[in-house]
Protein backbone atom coordinates (compact mmCIF):
# COMPACT_ATOMS: atom_id res chain seq x y z
CA UNK A 1 0.00 0.00 0.00
CA UNK A 2 1.51 3.34 -1.00
CA UNK A 3 -1.39 5.67 -0.21
CA UNK A 4 -0.36 8.82 1.67
CA UNK A 5 -1.49 8.92 5.30
CA UNK A 6 -4.42 11.30 5.49
CA UNK A 7 -6.16 10.70 8.80
CA UNK A 8 -5.11 10.47 12.44
CA UNK A 9 -5.42 6.82 13.45
CA UNK A 10 -6.44 7.77 16.99
CA UNK A 11 -9.03 10.56 16.66
CA UNK A 12 -9.98 10.17 13.01
CA UNK A 13 -9.44 13.86 12.20
CA UNK A 14 -7.33 15.13 9.30
CA UNK A 15 -3.68 14.40 9.96
CA UNK A 16 -2.03 16.33 7.17
CA UNK A 17 -2.82 19.95 8.11
CA UNK A 18 -1.99 19.85 11.83
CA UNK A 19 0.06 17.55 14.02
CA UNK A 20 -1.69 15.67 16.82
CA UNK A 21 0.86 15.55 19.63
CA UNK A 22 -1.80 14.42 22.16
CA UNK A 23 -2.85 11.57 19.91
CA UNK A 24 0.73 10.58 19.16
CA UNK A 25 1.51 10.43 22.86
CA UNK A 26 -1.69 8.51 23.70
CA UNK A 27 -0.98 6.04 20.91
CA UNK A 28 2.00 4.69 22.86
CA UNK A 29 -0.57 3.01 25.12
CA UNK A 30 -3.41 2.53 22.65
CA UNK A 31 -3.92 0.67 19.39
CA UNK A 32 -5.09 2.64 16.34
CA UNK A 33 -8.85 3.07 15.96
CA UNK A 34 -9.23 4.76 12.55
CA UNK A 35 -7.81 3.75 9.21
CA UNK A 36 -5.18 6.29 8.20
CA UNK A 37 -6.10 5.93 4.56
CA UNK A 38 -9.89 6.18 4.58
CA UNK A 39 -10.90 7.25 8.12
CA UNK A 40 -13.08 4.20 8.61
CA UNK A 41 -13.30 2.88 12.17
CA UNK A 42 -11.35 -0.35 12.30
CA UNK A 43 -12.20 -3.60 14.07
CA UNK A 44 -9.49 -3.75 16.69
CA UNK A 45 -8.55 -6.76 18.81
CA UNK A 46 -6.12 -6.15 21.64
CA UNK A 47 -4.21 -9.25 22.77
CA UNK A 48 -1.98 -9.75 25.83
CA UNK A 49 0.93 -9.26 23.44
CA UNK A 50 0.18 -6.99 20.48
CA UNK A 51 -3.00 -6.04 18.64
CA UNK A 52 -4.61 -6.30 15.24
CA UNK A 53 -6.76 -3.74 13.43
CA UNK A 54 -8.82 -4.41 10.33
CA UNK A 55 -10.14 -1.85 7.83
CA UNK A 56 -12.78 -3.36 5.59
CA UNK A 57 -11.19 -1.55 2.63
CA UNK A 58 -7.48 -1.50 3.46
CA UNK A 59 -6.99 -4.77 5.28
CA UNK A 60 -5.26 -5.75 8.52
CA UNK A 61 -2.38 -4.11 10.34
CA UNK A 62 -0.68 -5.51 13.45
CA UNK A 63 1.41 -4.06 16.21
Amino acid at each position, binding site marked *: MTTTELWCD*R*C*GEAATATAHPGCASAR*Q*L*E*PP*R*FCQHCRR*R*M*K*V*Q*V*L*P*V*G*WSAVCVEHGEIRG
Partner: protein
Amino acid sequence: MPEILDQARTQVLGDGVGLDQAGVLAVLNLPDEHLPAALQLAHEVRMRWCGPEVEVEGIVSLKTGGCPEDCHFCSQSGLFTSPVRSVWLDIPSLVEAAKQTAATGATEFCIVAAVRGPDARLMKQMREGVAAIKAAVDIQVAASLGMLTKEQVDDLVDMGVHRYNHNLETCRSYFPNVVTTHSWEERWETLRMVRDSGMEVCCGGILGLGETVEQRAEFAAQLAELDPHEVPLNFLNPRPGTPLGDRPVVEGKDALRAIAAFRLAMPRTILRYAGGREITLGDLGTRDGLLGGINAVIVGNYLTTLGRPATADLELLNELKMPVKALSATL
Protein backbone atom coordinates in the same frame (compact mmCIF):
# COMPACT_ATOMS: atom_id res chain seq x y z
CA MET B 1 3.83 9.15 63.60
CA PRO B 2 0.14 9.83 62.91
CA GLU B 3 -2.19 8.08 65.33
CA ILE B 4 -3.91 6.12 62.54
CA LEU B 5 -0.64 4.47 61.54
CA ASP B 6 0.10 3.52 65.16
CA GLN B 7 -3.36 2.02 65.39
CA ALA B 8 -2.91 0.19 62.08
CA ARG B 9 0.44 -1.22 63.17
CA THR B 10 -1.18 -2.90 66.14
CA GLN B 11 -4.53 -3.81 64.63
CA VAL B 12 -3.69 -4.65 61.00
CA LEU B 13 -0.06 -5.74 61.09
CA GLY B 14 -0.26 -7.31 64.53
CA ASP B 15 -3.72 -8.85 64.54
CA GLY B 16 -4.63 -9.05 60.83
CA VAL B 17 -7.78 -7.01 61.35
CA GLY B 18 -8.40 -4.46 58.58
CA LEU B 19 -9.11 -0.79 59.16
CA ASP B 20 -12.75 0.32 59.14
CA GLN B 21 -14.13 3.12 56.96
CA ALA B 22 -13.03 5.88 59.35
CA GLY B 23 -9.55 4.39 59.53
CA VAL B 24 -9.27 4.15 55.75
CA LEU B 25 -10.40 7.76 55.45
CA ALA B 26 -7.72 8.84 57.92
CA VAL B 27 -5.08 7.12 55.76
CA LEU B 28 -6.47 8.67 52.56
CA ASN B 29 -6.22 12.08 54.24
CA LEU B 30 -2.63 11.68 55.45
CA PRO B 31 -0.41 14.59 54.42
CA ASP B 32 2.33 13.89 51.89
CA GLU B 33 5.07 13.74 54.50
CA HIS B 34 3.46 10.65 56.07
CA LEU B 35 2.83 8.82 52.79
CA PRO B 36 6.15 6.90 52.87
CA ALA B 37 5.34 5.62 56.37
CA ALA B 38 1.86 4.53 55.26
CA LEU B 39 3.30 2.69 52.25
CA GLN B 40 5.98 1.06 54.39
CA LEU B 41 3.38 -0.17 56.87
CA ALA B 42 1.12 -1.43 54.07
CA HIS B 43 4.11 -3.30 52.64
CA GLU B 44 4.84 -4.91 56.00
CA VAL B 45 1.18 -5.92 56.26
CA ARG B 46 1.29 -7.47 52.79
CA MET B 47 4.53 -9.34 53.57
CA ARG B 48 3.21 -10.64 56.89
CA TRP B 49 -0.30 -11.66 55.82
CA CYS B 50 0.23 -12.54 52.12
CA GLY B 51 3.95 -13.16 51.72
CA PRO B 52 6.45 -11.95 49.12
CA GLU B 53 4.94 -13.72 46.10
CA VAL B 54 3.31 -11.68 43.37
CA GLU B 55 0.43 -13.15 41.38
CA VAL B 56 0.80 -12.44 37.68
CA GLU B 57 -2.21 -12.41 35.36
CA GLY B 58 -2.97 -11.77 31.73
CA ILE B 59 -6.37 -10.70 30.43
CA VAL B 60 -8.02 -10.83 27.05
CA SER B 61 -11.24 -9.54 25.57
CA LEU B 62 -13.34 -12.35 24.11
CA LYS B 63 -16.09 -9.97 23.03
CA THR B 64 -15.20 -6.31 22.64
CA GLY B 65 -17.51 -3.30 22.32
CA GLY B 66 -21.20 -2.99 21.61
CA CYS B 67 -22.18 -3.30 25.28
CA PRO B 68 -25.76 -2.23 26.13
CA GLU B 69 -24.73 -0.87 29.54
CA ASP B 70 -23.72 2.74 30.19
CA CYS B 71 -20.74 2.50 32.57
CA HIS B 72 -19.53 6.07 32.11
CA PHE B 73 -15.82 5.19 32.14
CA CYS B 74 -16.03 2.49 29.50
CA SER B 75 -15.12 2.81 25.82
CA GLN B 76 -16.96 -0.44 25.10
CA SER B 77 -20.47 0.87 25.73
CA GLY B 78 -22.53 0.96 22.56
CA LEU B 79 -24.30 4.04 23.93
CA PHE B 80 -21.39 6.47 23.56
CA THR B 81 -19.56 7.81 20.50
CA SER B 82 -16.43 5.85 21.35
CA PRO B 83 -14.34 4.66 18.38
CA VAL B 84 -14.24 1.09 19.78
CA ARG B 85 -16.06 -1.29 17.44
CA SER B 86 -17.64 -4.62 18.28
CA VAL B 87 -15.41 -7.64 17.65
CA TRP B 88 -15.24 -11.29 18.77
CA LEU B 89 -12.05 -13.26 19.34
CA ASP B 90 -11.94 -16.74 17.77
CA ILE B 91 -10.95 -19.76 19.85
CA PRO B 92 -7.54 -20.45 18.24
CA SER B 93 -6.59 -16.82 18.97
CA LEU B 94 -7.92 -17.16 22.52
CA VAL B 95 -5.72 -20.21 23.10
CA GLU B 96 -2.75 -18.37 21.59
CA ALA B 97 -3.37 -15.46 23.99
CA ALA B 98 -3.42 -17.91 26.91
CA LYS B 99 -0.12 -19.39 25.69
CA GLN B 100 1.48 -15.95 25.43
CA THR B 101 0.26 -15.18 28.95
CA ALA B 102 1.60 -18.45 30.38
CA ALA B 103 4.94 -17.77 28.71
CA THR B 104 5.40 -14.73 30.97
CA GLY B 105 5.14 -16.98 34.03
CA ALA B 106 1.60 -15.85 34.76
CA THR B 107 -0.67 -18.29 36.59
CA GLU B 108 -3.94 -16.52 35.82
CA PHE B 109 -5.66 -15.91 32.52
CA CYS B 110 -8.90 -13.93 32.65
CA ILE B 111 -11.37 -14.02 29.77
CA VAL B 112 -13.47 -10.86 29.61
CA ALA B 113 -16.59 -9.96 27.63
CA ALA B 114 -18.26 -6.55 27.34
CA VAL B 115 -21.83 -7.60 28.06
CA ARG B 116 -24.58 -6.99 30.61
CA GLY B 117 -24.50 -10.72 31.19
CA PRO B 118 -23.75 -13.75 29.02
CA ASP B 119 -26.18 -15.05 26.39
CA ALA B 120 -26.23 -18.61 25.02
CA ARG B 121 -23.70 -17.77 22.30
CA LEU B 122 -21.19 -16.37 24.80
CA MET B 123 -21.63 -19.31 27.19
CA LYS B 124 -21.03 -21.72 24.29
CA GLN B 125 -17.91 -19.79 23.27
CA MET B 126 -16.72 -19.92 26.87
CA ARG B 127 -17.29 -23.66 27.19
CA GLU B 128 -15.33 -24.35 23.99
CA GLY B 129 -12.68 -21.77 24.76
CA VAL B 130 -11.99 -22.84 28.34
CA ALA B 131 -11.80 -26.50 27.27
CA ALA B 132 -9.37 -25.62 24.47
CA ILE B 133 -7.17 -23.61 26.85
CA LYS B 134 -7.14 -26.34 29.47
CA ALA B 135 -6.14 -28.89 26.83
CA ALA B 136 -3.23 -26.80 25.60
CA VAL B 137 -1.97 -24.48 28.35
CA ASP B 138 -0.98 -24.86 32.00
CA ILE B 139 -2.76 -21.87 33.48
CA GLN B 140 -5.76 -21.14 35.70
CA VAL B 141 -8.75 -19.65 33.92
CA ALA B 142 -10.82 -16.80 35.32
CA ALA B 143 -13.75 -15.03 33.70
CA SER B 144 -15.48 -11.66 33.70
CA LEU B 145 -18.78 -11.75 31.83
CA GLY B 146 -21.03 -9.33 33.68
CA MET B 147 -24.07 -10.27 35.73
CA LEU B 148 -24.86 -13.98 35.98
CA THR B 149 -27.85 -16.19 36.65
CA LYS B 150 -27.47 -19.04 39.13
CA GLU B 151 -27.46 -21.48 36.20
CA GLN B 152 -24.62 -19.59 34.52
CA VAL B 153 -22.65 -19.59 37.76
CA ASP B 154 -23.02 -23.36 37.92
CA ASP B 155 -22.04 -23.70 34.26
CA LEU B 156 -18.83 -21.72 34.80
CA VAL B 157 -17.93 -23.90 37.78
CA ASP B 158 -18.56 -26.94 35.60
CA MET B 159 -16.24 -25.57 32.90
CA GLY B 160 -13.47 -25.25 35.46
CA VAL B 161 -13.42 -21.47 35.76
CA HIS B 162 -11.81 -21.02 39.16
CA ARG B 163 -12.29 -17.30 39.77
CA TYR B 164 -14.90 -14.82 38.66
CA ASN B 165 -14.31 -11.09 38.30
CA HIS B 166 -17.19 -8.72 38.79
CA ASN B 167 -16.19 -5.25 39.89
CA LEU B 168 -18.43 -3.09 42.04
CA GLU B 169 -16.44 -0.26 40.36
CA THR B 170 -17.14 2.34 43.05
CA CYS B 171 -18.93 2.73 46.37
CA ARG B 172 -22.65 2.18 46.68
CA SER B 173 -23.44 5.88 47.20
CA TYR B 174 -21.61 7.00 44.05
CA PHE B 175 -22.52 4.12 41.74
CA PRO B 176 -25.69 5.77 40.30
CA ASN B 177 -23.46 8.61 39.04
CA VAL B 178 -21.41 6.12 37.05
CA VAL B 179 -23.91 3.51 35.84
CA THR B 180 -27.64 3.94 35.30
CA THR B 181 -28.52 0.77 33.37
CA HIS B 182 -28.15 -1.55 36.37
CA SER B 183 -27.68 -1.20 40.09
CA TRP B 184 -24.89 -1.76 42.59
CA GLU B 185 -27.20 -4.24 44.31
CA GLU B 186 -27.54 -6.31 41.12
CA ARG B 187 -23.77 -6.57 40.99
CA TRP B 188 -23.67 -7.54 44.66
CA GLU B 189 -26.19 -10.32 43.96
CA THR B 190 -23.94 -11.84 41.26
CA LEU B 191 -21.01 -11.66 43.67
CA ARG B 192 -23.04 -13.43 46.34
CA MET B 193 -23.90 -16.28 43.95
CA VAL B 194 -20.27 -16.57 42.84
CA ARG B 195 -19.16 -16.74 46.46
CA ASP B 196 -21.75 -19.43 47.26
CA SER B 197 -20.64 -21.51 44.26
CA GLY B 198 -17.14 -21.94 45.61
CA MET B 199 -15.49 -19.93 42.83
CA GLU B 200 -13.00 -17.35 44.06
CA VAL B 201 -14.42 -13.84 44.09
CA CYS B 202 -12.48 -11.12 42.31
CA CYS B 203 -13.98 -7.69 42.89
CA GLY B 204 -12.48 -4.23 42.70
CA GLY B 205 -13.08 -1.01 40.89
CA ILE B 206 -11.78 2.21 39.47
CA LEU B 207 -10.54 5.25 41.34
CA GLY B 208 -10.85 8.72 39.82
CA LEU B 209 -14.45 8.52 38.60
CA GLY B 210 -15.30 11.74 40.45
CA GLU B 211 -15.90 10.11 43.82
CA THR B 212 -14.91 12.02 46.95
CA VAL B 213 -12.20 10.84 49.31
CA GLU B 214 -14.98 9.90 51.74
CA GLN B 215 -16.55 7.76 49.01
CA ARG B 216 -13.21 6.12 48.32
CA ALA B 217 -13.12 5.13 52.00
CA GLU B 218 -16.73 3.92 51.74
CA PHE B 219 -15.74 1.76 48.77
CA ALA B 220 -12.81 0.19 50.64
CA ALA B 221 -15.10 -0.63 53.56
CA GLN B 222 -17.71 -2.19 51.26
CA LEU B 223 -15.07 -4.30 49.56
CA ALA B 224 -13.73 -5.38 52.95
CA GLU B 225 -17.25 -6.46 53.90
CA LEU B 226 -17.42 -8.57 50.72
CA ASP B 227 -13.95 -9.95 51.55
CA PRO B 228 -12.94 -10.90 47.98
CA HIS B 229 -10.08 -13.26 47.24
CA GLU B 230 -8.73 -10.58 44.89
CA VAL B 231 -9.22 -6.83 44.50
CA PRO B 232 -8.12 -5.33 41.17
CA LEU B 233 -7.42 -1.63 41.55
CA ASN B 234 -7.84 0.48 38.41
CA PHE B 235 -7.17 4.19 37.98
CA LEU B 236 -9.33 5.98 35.46
CA ASN B 237 -7.76 6.23 32.03
CA PRO B 238 -10.20 8.76 30.50
CA ARG B 239 -11.43 7.33 27.21
CA PRO B 240 -12.40 9.52 24.24
CA GLY B 241 -16.12 9.69 23.66
CA THR B 242 -17.15 8.46 27.12
CA PRO B 243 -18.93 10.69 29.66
CA LEU B 244 -15.76 10.62 31.80
CA GLY B 245 -13.48 11.24 28.81
CA ASP B 246 -12.43 14.69 30.07
CA ARG B 247 -11.79 13.81 33.70
CA PRO B 248 -8.29 14.38 35.05
CA VAL B 249 -6.22 11.33 35.93
CA VAL B 250 -5.70 10.52 39.61
CA GLU B 251 -2.64 12.22 41.14
CA GLY B 252 0.17 9.74 41.71
CA LYS B 253 0.33 10.45 45.45
CA ASP B 254 -3.43 10.00 45.83
CA ALA B 255 -3.17 6.69 44.00
CA LEU B 256 -0.41 5.56 46.37
CA ARG B 257 -2.42 6.69 49.40
CA ALA B 258 -5.31 4.59 48.09
CA ILE B 259 -3.07 1.55 47.60
CA ALA B 260 -1.83 1.77 51.17
CA ALA B 261 -5.33 2.42 52.52
CA PHE B 262 -6.93 -0.48 50.62
CA ARG B 263 -4.17 -2.82 51.83
CA LEU B 264 -4.72 -1.67 55.41
CA ALA B 265 -8.45 -2.33 54.98
CA MET B 266 -7.87 -5.81 53.53
CA PRO B 267 -4.64 -7.32 54.89
CA ARG B 268 -5.06 -10.75 53.29
CA THR B 269 -6.52 -10.02 49.85
CA ILE B 270 -4.68 -10.23 46.55
CA LEU B 271 -4.43 -6.51 45.73
CA ARG B 272 -3.79 -6.24 42.02
CA TYR B 273 -2.54 -3.42 39.84
CA ALA B 274 -5.01 -3.29 36.96
CA GLY B 275 -5.63 -0.60 34.34
CA GLY B 276 -4.44 3.00 34.40
CA ARG B 277 -1.27 2.59 36.46
CA GLU B 278 0.95 3.52 33.52
CA ILE B 279 -0.55 6.99 33.18
CA THR B 280 -1.30 7.59 36.87
CA LEU B 281 1.89 6.27 38.43
CA GLY B 282 4.48 5.80 35.70
CA ASP B 283 7.49 3.57 36.29
CA LEU B 284 8.55 5.09 39.61
CA GLY B 285 5.06 5.02 41.08
CA THR B 286 4.55 1.45 39.90
CA ARG B 287 7.54 0.50 41.99
CA ASP B 288 6.30 2.49 45.00
CA GLY B 289 2.95 0.65 44.87
CA LEU B 290 4.64 -2.75 44.78
CA LEU B 291 6.47 -1.65 47.91
CA GLY B 292 3.26 -0.26 49.39
CA GLY B 293 0.73 -3.07 49.49
CA ILE B 294 0.27 -4.32 45.92
CA ASN B 295 0.95 -8.05 45.49
CA ALA B 296 -0.40 -8.84 42.04
CA VAL B 297 -0.15 -7.38 38.55
CA ILE B 298 -1.84 -7.60 35.20
CA VAL B 299 0.96 -7.91 32.68
CA GLY B 300 0.88 -7.07 29.01
CA ASN B 301 -2.03 -5.33 27.36
CA TYR B 302 -5.48 -4.61 28.71
CA LEU B 303 -8.82 -5.01 26.91
CA THR B 304 -8.83 -1.95 24.65
CA THR B 305 -5.61 -0.22 25.71
CA LEU B 306 -1.99 -1.29 25.91
CA GLY B 307 0.19 -1.86 28.96
CA ARG B 308 3.92 -1.80 29.26
CA PRO B 309 5.75 -4.96 28.13
CA ALA B 310 5.46 -7.89 30.55
CA THR B 311 9.26 -8.06 30.68
CA ALA B 312 9.40 -4.59 32.28
CA ASP B 313 7.20 -5.74 35.16
CA LEU B 314 8.99 -9.07 35.52
CA GLU B 315 12.37 -7.33 35.66
CA LEU B 316 11.04 -4.99 38.32
CA LEU B 317 9.74 -7.91 40.42
CA ASN B 318 13.10 -9.60 40.08
CA GLU B 319 14.87 -6.45 41.20
CA LEU B 320 12.52 -6.12 44.18
CA LYS B 321 13.18 -9.79 45.04
CA MET B 322 9.50 -10.60 44.83
CA PRO B 323 9.03 -14.09 43.40
CA VAL B 324 6.27 -14.68 40.85
CA LYS B 325 3.66 -16.96 42.40
CA ALA B 326 3.98 -20.41 40.85
CA LEU B 327 1.12 -22.54 39.59
CA SER B 328 1.87 -25.31 42.10
CA ALA B 329 1.47 -22.82 44.93
CA THR B 330 -1.98 -21.81 43.78
CA LEU B 331 -3.47 -25.27 43.27
